[in-house]
């Protein structure tokens, strides 16, 4: 047995909870706000377990110098890892203070109750966390068998809570990293090469009044204002010459099929060799990118060999380790503060820009260097989510049950975050003269949900299953994590095949799914979404289509089922989505609904519109016209619902709706047009070629 979540790695109570004067308890977390509302949810958990009000908690995100290392804020794991750790730690704190109250009042701890932070004994109030404050009381480790509040006694976790961060954003207060201004700050812009392998022709750099920073093929201009640095960067981009080397594949599918690869068996149960397949089909998705609305930004300041960085990285400790390697300075000499950026939806350029700033800052001691990427850099130089091919072969037995299932996934890795090893993958590290080759992207292990193989093992009960993965060892386009990693494509593929098999078996596809599931929670979300959407009474109207998609995220996370209703006119317009989710205990119902709906709408954008465009030399989709995302007049109405399972362990909801939504759209297109679309995005062109 071990302590829950991140508490096992950070057992000391005082690293999580700090009682400070004036009726405030400081709560520390190593997870960071990326627009998902995590700070709000964690505050709810803590307030509830400590028996105090929300307003009495001040929540503080990590800094490497005085904070918790909770690795990466990703994978819908923050409630499980940080939330459950905080709940347990707060229960320990409450218990310690109850003992303290008991000794003050000379009574038994079990006779004391806590209300609004006040410990009340048989004779009345004894004191609160602040009046009972005892120095070093929390300088001890959490222990296993602490009594947690019972589910039915929780009053804050489980009720909708307003987002802590939203007022600043609605009233236009400085809150984002972009808004920080420090004394003596200088503003830098990067002049990127036109393509990854391009080499700077140094002679072409004009002698001008501008401050220029050059290190190998890394070129930046430094100025006293953002306007001047942007202007200088635009000027230099026009003038500076590069020796270009084309390196991007002309045909992505061919590249996926032919590139050097590392083959592995993800899962095998029974045998699938020498089958007569009822179905053999390929699914494809091109490269996608994060397309944040805000730009990647960082500030770095060197003084006396110490580096201080402000960053919106999701993994500040690992970023610190990577910066130490590239800059060849001790890791102890670096401090990174997390500051909110715009939503990132995975590993975008947040870490890269921190290195940009640090490289330049070394030349300007004592001066904070602020780097903000351009829109073009944001869309073309951040990591992409790998293009993927998924091949599925399946056959039915004579009873109409799926007997054999073979799935083969081909993709670059989906993880290239800072790792703190000797081979940093930060962008500028590959451009400086002492260059590091960008490592070939990896996949997280299946125990953490996998990468390209995420959600590749069907939850459906099938006698013989083999799932195989080909991780490519050539990486022309830098890839890393985007919301859900491989789950989006695997769920799209699996749920399309399930529909096709149901059709071959001459069965209703809902019944077919339920027939192949034993997990009651899986069945319940499917039944729920069918009921919410009145799916069984859906009207058949020419040009309209209905489809369903289902998955349990990562096989171990939240259950989610989606019904989509679309209009197939000149393009595909999603009219309605119904989303049923079972994530166990819901901490903030409104926040969870916001996440699930946001994920579903973003999935419509991925599915219908998005694709990174490039020629042999450069990425062409470097502006919003070339990389369009879903707009207001294309957004469906969305209805969400959660299965009431407050007594079950909470599961993150940030990524669970993506795959099922894409699948539901593909199935709805088939329903409307009779066409089985297997290539994303579901554009007119891809549908007519299907």
């Amino acid at each position, binding site marked *: 047995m071990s302590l829950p979540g991140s508490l096992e790695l950070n057992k000391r109570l005082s690293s999580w909870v700090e009682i400070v004067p004036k009726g405030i308890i400081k709560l520390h977390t190593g997870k960071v706000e990326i627009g998902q509302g995590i700070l709000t949810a964690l505050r709810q958990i803590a307030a509830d377990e400590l028996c105090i009000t929300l307003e009495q908690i001040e929540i503080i995100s990590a800094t490497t110098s005085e904070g918790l290392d909770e690795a990466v804020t990703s994978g819908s794991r923050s409630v499980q890892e940080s939330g459950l750790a905080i709940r347990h730690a707060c229960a320990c704190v409450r218990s310690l203070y109850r003992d303290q109250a008991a000794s003050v009042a000379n009574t038994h701890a079990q006779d004391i109750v806590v209300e609004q932070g006040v410990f009340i004994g048989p004779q009345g109030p004894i004191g609160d966390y602040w009046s009972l404050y005892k120095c070093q009381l929390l300088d001890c480790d959490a222990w296993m068998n602490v009594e947690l509040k019972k589910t039915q006694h929780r009053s804050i976790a489980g009720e909708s809570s307003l987002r802590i961060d939203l007022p600043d*954003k*609605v009233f236009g207060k400085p809150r*984002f990293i972009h*808004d920080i201004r420090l004394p003596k700050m200088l503003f830098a812009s990067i002049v990127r090469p036109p393509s990854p392998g391009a080499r700077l022709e140094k002679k072409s750099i004009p002698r001008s009044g501008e401050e220029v920073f050059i290190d190998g093929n890394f070129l930046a201009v430094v100025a006293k204002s953002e306007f001047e640095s942007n202007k200088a960067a635009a000027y230099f981009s026009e003038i500076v010459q590069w020796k270009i080397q084309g390196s991007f594949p002309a045909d992505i599918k061919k590249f996926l099929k032919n590139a050097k690869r590392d083959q592995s068996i993800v899962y095998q149960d029974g045998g699938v060799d020498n089958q007569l397949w009822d179905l053999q089909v390929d699914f494809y998705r091109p490269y996608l990118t994060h397309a944040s*609305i805000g730009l990647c930004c960082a500030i770095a300041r060197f003084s006396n060999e110490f580096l201080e960085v402000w960053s919106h990285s999701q993994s500040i400790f690992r970023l610190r380790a990577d910066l130490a390697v590239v800059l060849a300075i001790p890791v102890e000499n670096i401090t990174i503060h997390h500051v909110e950026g715009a939503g990132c939806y995975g590993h975008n350029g947040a870490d890269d820009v921190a290195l940009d700033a640090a490289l330049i800052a070394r030349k300007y001691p004592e001066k904070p260097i602020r780097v903000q990427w351009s829109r073009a850099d944001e869309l073309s130089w951040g990591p992409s989510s790998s293009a993927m091919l998924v091949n599925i072969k399946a056959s039915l037995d004579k009873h109409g049950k799926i007997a054999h299932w073979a799935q083969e996934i081909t993709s670059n890795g989906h993880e290239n975050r800072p790792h703190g090893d000797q081979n940093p993958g930060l962008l500028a590290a590959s451009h400086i003269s002492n260059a590091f080759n960008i490592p070939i992207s990896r996949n997280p292990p299946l125990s953490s949900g996998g990468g390209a193989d995420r959600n590749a093992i069907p939850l459906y009960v099938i006698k013989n299953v083999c799932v195989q993965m080909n991780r490519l060892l050539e990486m022309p386009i830098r890839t890393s994590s985007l919301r859900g990693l491989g789950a989006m494509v695997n769920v799209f593929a699996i749920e399309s095949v399930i529909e096709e098999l149901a059709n071959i078996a001459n069965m209703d596809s809902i019944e077919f799914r339920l027939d192949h599931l034993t997990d009651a929670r899986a069945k319940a979300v499917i039944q729920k979404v069918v009921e919410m959407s009145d799916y069984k009474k859906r009207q058949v109207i020419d040009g309209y289509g209905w489809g369903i998609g289902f998955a349990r995220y990562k096989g171990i996370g939240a259950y989610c089922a989606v019904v989509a209703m679309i209009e197939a006119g000149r393009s595909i317009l999603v009219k309605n989505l119904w989303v049923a989710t079972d994530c166990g205990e819901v901490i903030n119902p409104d926040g969870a609904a*916001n996440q699930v709906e946001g994920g*579903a*709408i973003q999935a419509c954008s991925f599915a219908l519109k998005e694709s990174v465009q490039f020629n042999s030399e450069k990425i062409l989709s470097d502006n919003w016209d070339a990389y369009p*995302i879903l*707009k207001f007049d294309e957004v469906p109405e969305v209805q969400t619902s959660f299965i009431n399972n407050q007594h079950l362990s909470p599961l993150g909801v940030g990524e669970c709706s993506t795959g099922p939504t894409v699948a539901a759209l593909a199935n709805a297109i088939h329903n409307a047009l009779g066409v089985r679309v297997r290539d994303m995005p579901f554009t007119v062109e891809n549908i007519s070629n299907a």
Partner: protein
Amino acid sequence: MIHFTLNGQPVEVELEGKTPLINVLRDYFGLFGTRYGCGQEACGACMVLIDGKASYACTVIVDELKSCSIQTVEGLGNRDNPHPLQKAFIDEQAGQCGFCLSGMLIKSAALLNANKNPNESDIRTALKDNLCRCGVHNRIIRAVLAAAKDLRSKGALDKADHQ
């Protein structure tokens, strides 16, 4: 020296004429609510009202500001005295990362100035060039509908007061 009105106050700036308004707001006046997203009039994060019209602060330059009246998100309202839109955005929890919200609020304010009773379709059309990546669109639509209703009832009250 260029004179204009900023959030109701007369101001003057002495800056290079080609400086974009967004840099003036953020770095000269310290008004960080206007967010920079693309610099190409393509996302709407930087919108401000110029003489009541929703405009892209990333491309309007100082030279064009003479005698203009500019209103930023900070000028709409504050915590103590929020604009009905700001109140409605919080009531509806219409935000995730929040980076697009200043532009959404400004564009919605321009809509409500022109149309006191917009329906959902009017709002979708008005906001279609403002990008949101988190998928908060439906909450924003509900917030604008609520704010419009709020404004109409306030307008009716004001009218009653005058009679």
